């Protein structure tokens, strides 16, 4: 599997660590809603199909990425940085100004 890190470009999945299902809501730190905390920690939709999830590019820039990946085909339809709204694009030599 190849994941295209917004910063590093396309990289082998071996450089990444899966960090679980996205879309779970962590309650506000001060929240005392036990059910909401339980749900955050333990409960998963486990979608068969387009799945929102978090990966860390642990063997690269170490940023966490939000992916939409189809769990039936492993096809990745979107990748974005969890923390950084925008990142500069990686340049190839052909694009480098002379």
């Amino acid at each position, binding site marked *: 599997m190849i994941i295209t890190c917004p910063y590093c470009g396309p990289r082998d999945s071996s450089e990444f660590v899966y960090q679980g299902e996205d879309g779970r809501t962590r309650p506000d730190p001060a929240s005392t809603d036990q059910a909401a905390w339980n749900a955050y920690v333990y409960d998963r939709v486990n979608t068969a199909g387009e799945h929102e999830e978090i990966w860390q590019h642990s*063997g690269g820039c170490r940023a966490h990425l939000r992916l939409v990946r189809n769990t039936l085909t492993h096809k990745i339809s979107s990748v974005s940085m969890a923390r*950084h709204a925008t990142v500069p694009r990686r340049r190839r030599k052909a694009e480098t100004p002379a």
Partner: protein
Amino acid sequence: MVDQLSPLAPVLTPGRQGQGPMGVVLAEIAPGSIVQVAAWAGQESALIAIVRDATGLALPDGAGGGIATDTKAAFGFAPGKFLLADQEEGLAAALPKAVTSALGTVTDLSHGRTVIRISGTRAEWVLAKFFAIDFSLPALPVGAGLSTVHHDIFAQIQRSGADQFDIYVFRSFARSFWKSLCHASEEVNYEVR
């Protein structure tokens, strides 16, 4: 000042291995300073300007952009994060004065990273044995850098010349990596300098 003791000292023996032309040359370059600077979101260009003032190196924009001279090097390896190296000591002491907390942070890694240089016509071939990275010149232009990993060994790599790469590894892994690198270079003949 006390000199740094390299983790490669007992295993780095200059000389040639193999008959015929040398496919690669392996060497340790021991910068006096290795410093990480990191900008808060939105402060990247301000930080790049400070790096230029402090080191004279003009970092190109673009992820992984970098520049290398004979004595200094700088490249981006993560969003807002840059690695700077200088043959002279002192960068770690100088930079925090310029990089305010409103801009970002400075972290001294002068002892924490070991820099191994691989050069020669077969350098891309040997590196390709370790890293799942496209090392071709168009994909990784001179000066550009990246972060990657070889199994457990995390590495930041800058292309410092057409046939030359500088590999920054964690000091504790350096000896293990060096041995592997020598082993992998046997196929193409190598010289240790």
